[in-house]
């Protein structure tokens, strides 16, 4: 029986040739976006769109990336996303609290790391207010993750601003294609208790997924005074996803999420905080396979309420809402050329309200004004061209142009000369690109040379105000009022930071060990590093320590600064193999960082700095990961992961009534063991003992407090 078709059945050879040459996309096809599971089964490897926007096999991407599969997540025994990726080459996980971690890719990591964009199914879960990711607020259960795609190096041309040193896209199972049924009960150290479930339901024309969890735990025990507050973490979240096939060529999907979290952690001013974070989001998208290609239109909105107390500052309440409209078309021309056209409009709004708690315990509303508001609206156009030059060579070029408009309202610092008009005048235009040339030397050997420019946009807070606290004690006039404040203020002169990167990779499939060797050499440069960590009271100056209190209030100012630039060279080597039920892996990363950062030493003496950013000392030079695992029989399987990480030095704030400064804290090299042992009762139920960070007791991973090894017992079942 002939297939249904869209082309006339009889055409002249000439007409066919012309049609063939100019046809946009081969055919009308079903509206299916990416059926990851079926493609994985077909090609016997993971498939991704996170390299170029075009679906590609993991082994054929023109950018260095690692795909952590659901099986990998299970093997590592992770109960959270940072721990699931901590053994990926080039990934740096710095845990500062029980549920608090910062993640960096290829160096340039820092508290609240703003240079790594994190998304779930293409929706950013990175919060633009600080430029950061609350990893514990990502409303996704481990059991619903199909794969975590870790792009190493800039990919702004695809994902937009802040995919600067890398991007992580978490891909969940799709209820239109996948069946997931999972319930987990987890108990662990620090009296950790978690219950989670994920359930899909499918029918002919669609499917839904519902997932939810609740977690409670104690904060890590700390000997001596704490750097970060003792806040027992608590997390609740729920997610709904619906996928509907409207007809053979169209699909509609929607997602709603909500999460509420509480924990303590480390901030970009190198002090502790105890944020309570509520997030919610919705997303609608429509996909149609037309004769003009695979067209997708999407709208989503993220809402964030971040209520926190930062040590040294007051009670800070940040609100951020982001609305994103996206339209893209993915199509082919002829046999060798694929294109992606994309446009995006982003409406990003921030409001900060600040209460100031004075040393005598009195808390008052910010005396400078009710709030500060800022917005960043941006419009982007981007294009991708993928050219299969011949059977040996492939070229991929992506370009993206962003135009950004900033608007600011609310209080300013009296007498500072800073006005809202200065922020309103900010107009940023940014061109970013990714290019990759692939040379398939043989069927099993491949070189890829990639050159990229990414960009990190100053955050909403960089353009607004980050925090307000009481001015140091000597400058507080006696009595209830007036009271002096200290404000970390935005800077209208900040520019988007550009990250240029060059990468040469070699991949060889090793059939004799059923594995693969991958080597990456890279060089990256980043400019315009903005630092919130600046205690320099530039205007008006605070009186010198020891001087008598001023007669009236001092609204001292510290401004977010562009502190300099940095560059790094590195090599990453990965080797993996499989033999029967035994699988193993090895990876090694060497990173040499060279900063050109103008940290200012405290003129009052001591070893500290008045502002601080240091990637040279803060990046471990060498990291080594090993893993081995096996399936013993139908009932038992086990995996061991070993990580050795070089020593580093990280900043910590030292606050005193007279002011503050930043000191470097030595973080020793770490040898840690993670892994899991699982007993399968039957096909539906299993019991897993897993651990993270064994081998080190009460160890520092960040400049905050010591953390402990974590052990979990997980009962999993499908229903």
């Amino acid at each position, binding site marked *: 029986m002939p297939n249904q078709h869209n*082309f006339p059945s009889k055409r002249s050879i000439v007409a066919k040739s012309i049609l063939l040459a100019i046809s946009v996309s*081969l055919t009308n096809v079903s509206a299916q976006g*990416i059926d990851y599971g079926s493609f994985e089964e077909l090609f016997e490897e993971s498939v991704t769109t996170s390299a170029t926007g075009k679906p*590609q096999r993991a082994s054929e991407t023109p950018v260095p990336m690692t795909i952590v599969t659901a099986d990998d997540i299970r093997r590592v025994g992770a109960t959270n996303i940072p721990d699931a990726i901590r053994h990926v080459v080039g990934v740096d996980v710095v845990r500062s609290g029980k549920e608090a971690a910062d993640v960096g890719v290829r160096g340039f990591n820092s508290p609240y790391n703003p240079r790594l964009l994190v998304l779930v199914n293409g929706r950013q879960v990175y919060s633009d207010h600080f430029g950061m990711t609350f990893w514990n607020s990502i409303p996704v259960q481990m059991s619903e993750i199909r794969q975590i795609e870790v792009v190493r190096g800039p990919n702004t041309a695809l994902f937009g601003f802040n995919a600067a040193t890398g991007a992580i896209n978490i891909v969940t199972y799709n209820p239109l294609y996948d069946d997931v049924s999972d319930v987990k009960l987890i108990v662990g150290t620090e009296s950790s208790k978690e219950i989670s479930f994920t359930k899909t339901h499918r029918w002919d024309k669609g499917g839904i997924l519902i997932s939810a969890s609740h977690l409670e735990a104690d904060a890590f025990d700390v000997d001596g005074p704490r750097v970060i507050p003792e806040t027992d973490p608590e997390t609740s979240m729920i997610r709904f996803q619906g996928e509907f096939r409207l007809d053979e060529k169209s699909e509609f999907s929607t997602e709603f999420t909500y999460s509420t979290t509480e924990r303590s952690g480390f901030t970009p001013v190198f002090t502790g905080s105890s944020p309570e974070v509520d997030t919610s989001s919705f997303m609608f998208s429509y996909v149609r396979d037309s004769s003009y290609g695979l067209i997708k239109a999407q709208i989503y909105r993220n809402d964030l309420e971040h209520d926190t107390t930062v040590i040294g500052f007051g009670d800070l309440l940040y609100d951020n809402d982001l609305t994103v409209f996206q339209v893209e078309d993915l199509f082919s021309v002829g046999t060798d050329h*694929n294109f992606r056209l994309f446009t995006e409009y982003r409406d990003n709004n921030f409001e900060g309200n600040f209460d100031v708690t004075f040393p005598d315990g009195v808390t008052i509303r910010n005396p400078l004004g009710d709030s500060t508001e800022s917005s960043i609206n941006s419009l982007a156009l981007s294009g991708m061209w993928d050219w299969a030059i011949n059977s040996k060579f492939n070229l991929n070029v992506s370009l993206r142009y962003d135009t950004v408009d900033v608007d600011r309202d609310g209080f300013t610092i009296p007498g500072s000369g800073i006005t809202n008009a200065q922020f309103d005048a900010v107009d940023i235009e940014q061109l970013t690109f990714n290019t990759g040339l692939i040379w398939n030397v043989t069927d*099993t050997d491949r070189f890829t040379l990639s050159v990229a420019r990414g960009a990190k946009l100053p955050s909403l807070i960089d353009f607004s105000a980050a925090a307000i606290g009481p001015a140091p004690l000597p400058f507080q006039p006696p009595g209830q009022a007036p009271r002096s404040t200290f404000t970390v203020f935005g800077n209208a002169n900040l520019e988007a930071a550009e990250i240029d990167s060059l990468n040469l990779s070699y991949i060889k499939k090793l059939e004799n060990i059923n594995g693969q060797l991958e080597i990456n050499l890279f060089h990256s440069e980043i400019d315009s590093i903005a630092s919130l960590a600046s205690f320099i009271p530039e205007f008006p100056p605070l009186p010198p320590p020891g001087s008598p209190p001023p007669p009236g209030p001092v609204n001292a100012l510290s401004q977010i600064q562009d502190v300099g630039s940095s560059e790094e060279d590195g090599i990453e080597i990965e080797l993996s193999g499989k033999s029967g039920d035994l699988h193993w892996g090895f990876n090694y990363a060497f990173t040499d960082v*060279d900063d050109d950062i103008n940290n200012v030493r405290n003129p009052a003496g001591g070893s500290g700095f008045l502002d601080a950013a240091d990637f040279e000392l803060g990046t471990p030079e060498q990291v080594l990961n090993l893993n081995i695992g096996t399936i013993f029989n139908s009932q038992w399987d086990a995996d061991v992961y070993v990580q050795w990480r070089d020593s580093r030095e990280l900043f910590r704030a030292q606050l005193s009534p007279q002011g503050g400064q930043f000191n470097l804290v030595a973080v020793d090299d770490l040898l840690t063991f993670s892994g899991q042992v699982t007993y399968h009762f039957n096909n539906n139920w299993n019991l897993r003992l897993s651990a993270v960070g064994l081998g080190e007791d009460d160890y520092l991973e960040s400049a905050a407090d010591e953390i402990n090894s974590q052990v979990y017992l997980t009962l999993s079942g499908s229903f």
Partner: protein
Amino acid sequence: MKPRIPFMEIGLNRLIKTCLMGLFIAANSMNIWAETTDKDMKIAMRAIKFLSEGPKGNVKAAIVYNPADSASQQDANTIKAFISKNPKAGAATLNPTLVDVSALSEIQGSAVVLLTTNIAANHAAIFAETIKVGAVSISTDKSCVKNGHCVLGISSSPKVEIFVNKAAALETETNFKTAFMMLVNVL
């Protein structure tokens, strides 16, 4: 700025050079398309799922072979045995039917045509028949796809490779899903 350690730089440079030299010495084996294996068939059956508006229900799958050629006969047996055991391909259930190269009119009524090895001389004639019935033709012989006489080429070793001849697809009115087309080699 941190002082650079000279020996570290030398070491890194040497490492880089050594790696690059090693990489260029890599073996240069060409892809060899073998006779049809069970793994090839597994891939072929999975690929059928990505036909747009592809076959549904019970459909005839013609296995074209040359009874005078032992390799072709062997291939036909392998293909038929595999389909008999695993008839599901997307929404279709394949009913394998052997078709002699000397009786190509028996392709009529087929939704899928599978070509065995060693019948290159008949590729054009087979393709002419598949055009008539609008069937998708599948082969592990790359030359068939390259010459525009087969729509789909399958190779499963050393890694899965799928080739689609766009002109042949157009002529047989065979449509694949867009994402699939972006993942395969289009000729």
